[in-house]
């Protein structure tokens, strides 16, 4: 945890640059959810995950499951920053034979712990990892990132109920609450009412933060690592902005799954401080 807040913010900025480059290069992909999640994933990997990038299949590593697997550019950017893959590998995003498959895939990319892409699956898989860790008497953790739209999948709640029943204190969820899903704002597609109350009612430790304020992100990760009820699973509800960091993508449902054109790409690089205006 030697990284300063400024260091983490710079890491996240570099990841944002890569996210936009990947999606622009492929002219396809999911920038909005990658940009909303990136501060959280960058901080998690840089300061909490017990991992060995040179040995990605180390048995006793912490697991990270990106259940919203379409937001893969964010994860690939972090994996490159951490040294699991090279920055050159990022050019393989959505390219035939590339390690950076369209959705994160454990069979293709070192450092990916679950082949996601179909929503509502990662929490259950994480529960399996957490259960296995307990059987192994290991203190390794399973971190799972889910999206808010994803919570409309019923299987999320099967897993939420089961993880609390089994008192999986080593299961830690980050909710990327960016308020937008594929077609529109979540509020228009399917209202979810009081999300913290839902998770509390399922028996989870719950904390809410601003998912783009790195100081709050660190406090949130502190909570995940040491929740009030250490025998229960925990969820960090991170309020985020879809497309965060790129003005024309922010809060814009069009950039859930669309690539910027050349002009928009240039503007994004300017806004991220990569090039002069």
């Amino acid at each position, binding site marked *: 945890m030697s990284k300063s807040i400024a260091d983490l913010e710079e890491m996240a900025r570099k990841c944002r640059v890569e996210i936009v480059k990947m999606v622009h290069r492929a002219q396809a992909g999911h920038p909005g959810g990658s940009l909303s999640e990136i501060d959280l994933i960058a901080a998690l990997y840089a300061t909490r995950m017990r991992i060995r990038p040179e040995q990605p299949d180390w048995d006793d590593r912490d697991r990270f499951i990106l259940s919203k697997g379409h937001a893969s550019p964010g994860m690939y950017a972090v994996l490159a920053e951490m040294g699991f893959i090279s920055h050159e590998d990022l050019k393989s995003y959505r390219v035939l034979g590339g390690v950076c498959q369209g959705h994160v895939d454990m069979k293709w990319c070192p450092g990916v712990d*679950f082949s996601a892409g*179909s929503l*509502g699956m990662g929490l259950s898989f994480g529960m399996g*990892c957490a259960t*296995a860790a307990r059987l192994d008497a290991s203190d390794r953790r399973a971190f799972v990132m889910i999206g808010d739209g994803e919570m409309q999948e019923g299987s999320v709640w099967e*897993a939420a109920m*089961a993880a609390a029943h089994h008192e999986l204190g080593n299961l830690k969820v980050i909710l990327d609450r960016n308020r937008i899903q594929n077609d529109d704002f979540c509020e228009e597609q399917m209202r979810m009412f009081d999300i913290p109350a839902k998770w509390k009612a399922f028996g989870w430790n719950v904390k809410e933060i601003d998912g783009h304020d790195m100081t709050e992100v660190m406090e949130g990760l502190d909570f995940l690592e040491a929740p009030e009820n250490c025998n229960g699973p925990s969820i960090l509800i991170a309020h985020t902005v879809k497309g965060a960091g790129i003005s024309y993508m922010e809060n814009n449902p069009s950039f859930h799954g669309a690539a910027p054109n050349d002009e928009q790409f240039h503007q994004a690089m300017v806004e991220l401080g990569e090039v002069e205006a």
Partner: protein
Amino acid sequence: MTRMAATRDGYGQALLDLADNPKVVVLEADLGKSTKSLHFRKAHPERTVSCGIGEQNMLLVGAGMAASGYIPFASTFAIFTERAFEQMRNGVARPNLAVHLCGSHGGTHTGTDGSSAQSIEDLAVFRTLPNVTVLHPCDDVSTRILTTRLAGTKSPSYMRTARNKTPVLYDDVDPDSIQIGKGIELKDGNDVAIIACGVLVSESLKAADILMQEGINASVIDMHTLKPLDGQLVDRMVERCGAIVTAEDHNVIGGLGSAVAEHLVANKFAPLEMVGVPDRFGESGQADEMLDLMKLSAKYIVEAAKKAISRK
């Protein structure tokens, strides 16, 4: 007197046999009493994970455990495995994680619960998934042996077991003769080959006896593994008999009959008659009544055999 037993009991016994391996874990979805995983639960509660009535979660908890070095055996009714089909597809088969899914109470033979509990499509849907081995053994002995063999494989599987008792065929056989992917020739004939799985294997033996009385000498194959199909054995039957019948308590679309047909058209060819559920849902009835209603019992296999021979 032939011993009678249900294949689900063989599954339950196999889990106990496997318990010496500390990596074997059992996952349940509130039907352990029915699928017979309850025996393992009683003996090893610490290695049994209750997933409540939540099959989708169960499959992926299994995937997470398999990815962490465990060997999960998950079971529920065959019909409810289908509810978790996409979990099996995307979370288990696609990353090729060795989760072993067992669907008990498969087929119309399940009986009086009626059509909602009688899976007639499970073998078809799981057969379409890359990496997945599909099994449907015919008695408790072979179920027990094949289940224990699954623990040594590196890829996922689906095994259907049956609720009701059927004749036991493999008491006192050499366990080495029962291998995943290898059909078993139970009766050696040269006029027609009846290739069957599950509860229809014993019906096929009955049919062969009836045929023998009429001077027709039928081979009977227990094709307990639908995928990978024992194509070499099918080829040998084609060469020797020149006429094939398949028999399964499963929709005639997509199951064993289809698997054999897919093989025949691409290899050595022979006329094929398929005995299976005639693309309709079942209803409440006793197991034997269902086999008659669905035109699956021995007399229908006899009819199919004669028809196949007539087409030579």
